């Protein structure tokens, strides 16, 4: 029978080993995920979007849930014109980074590309409320308004973009 002291040492040793094992495994997983991400970037640069997407998905599955990886995965789907796949990726990205107006604008683009113009307009209003003088957002709204045939409202936006008074006809 082991005495109390020895049992305590053994318990500490086991715990330390477990922690070391977990840290080491996590580190290895993350390292592998980062390698996947790196490989994804390489594939993306070479235009091999299918493989790039696979690598990014593996990176996310490996625990690398960073906004950067989601952004790259979303861009990969966009490059493949897989809008229905890109949309939830950017939506997730917005959850991770809720104040990112660029991501919102990307989602506006995706909604518009899928003819979900109501969603696009609702989101663009949010963007413009937060940053009314942001030109790309106003351009995006003008374009979506044009898509839905609301020409008069689009005209007002374009006049604002050009710093022309809405009533100015000269």
């Amino acid at each position, binding site marked *: 029978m082991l005495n109390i002291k020895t049992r305590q040492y053994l318990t500490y040793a086991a715990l330390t080993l477990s922690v070391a094992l977990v840290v080491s495994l996590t580190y290895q997983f993350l390292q592998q995920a980062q390698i996947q991400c790196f490989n994804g970037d390489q594939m993306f640069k070479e235009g091999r979007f299918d493989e790039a997407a696979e690598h990014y998905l593996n990176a996310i599955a490996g625990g690398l849930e960073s906004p950067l990886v989601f952004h790259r995965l979303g861009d990969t789907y966009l490059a493949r014109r897989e809008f229905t796949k890109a949309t939830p990726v950017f939506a997730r990205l917005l959850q991770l980074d809720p104040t990112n107006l660029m991501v919102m604008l990307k989602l506006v683009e995706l909604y518009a590309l899928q003819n979900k113009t109501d969603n696009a307009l609702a989101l663009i209003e949010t963007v413009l409320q937060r940053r009314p003088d942001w030109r790309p957002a106003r*351009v995006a709204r*003008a374009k979506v308004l*044009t898509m839905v*045939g609301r*020409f008069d409202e689009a005209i007002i936006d374009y006049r604002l973009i050009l710093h022309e008074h809405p009533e100015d006809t000269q």
Partner: protein
Amino acid sequence: MKTMLIAFTLFLTFSGYTTNIEAATPATSLPEVTQPAATTSVPPLAPIGEDIQDWEARWELARLLSFTKRYDESLIQYRKLLLEKPTLQKARLEMASVLSWAGKTEEAVATLRSVPQQDIDKDNRLAFADIFIASKDYVAAEALLVEHLQSSPSDDLARLKLADLLSWIKRYDASLKEYEIILKHQPNDSQVRRKYGYVLIWAGKRDQAVIELRKSLKE
């Protein structure tokens, strides 16, 4: 279905596909150059989400103003745009269309003439042929129609336009050839056959004209 009918009606109006049954003498029934229904299918200059330059925004604005029939305002924007980008022939062509819709035919023709013919794209040739016809510049209209028919030989509406035009300038044999091609494609079109009959009369081929006009009545 309703939209298709409206589009077809507009197309017929726009292409001048109407027959004046009482036209017993050579006469030019000039097509009225009208603006087609406002379209939302204009390809965007840049993807949504990307910023655009001022001239691109002005171009979009000019287009939208023309869609809403605010032609004078649209022309102001086109002029500003072309001051900034004088080599933008596509915009110049669009401005020519807007000028014609605004009833400024002479200016429209002058604008069209300033554009090299090779810059007039396939989709716009018919509309621009109408502008030239409206200004009685049949030579320019004929050139556009012939070019269009070379790439789209089965476009009978364009061919009918050409046949009409050739009859107005008394080139009856050339006109009759075009009518014959249309009638080969559409032998039961009594309106075309009636027009063909009239041109035969004007060409002095009265016997053949009687046969064709009788046929057209049966049809």
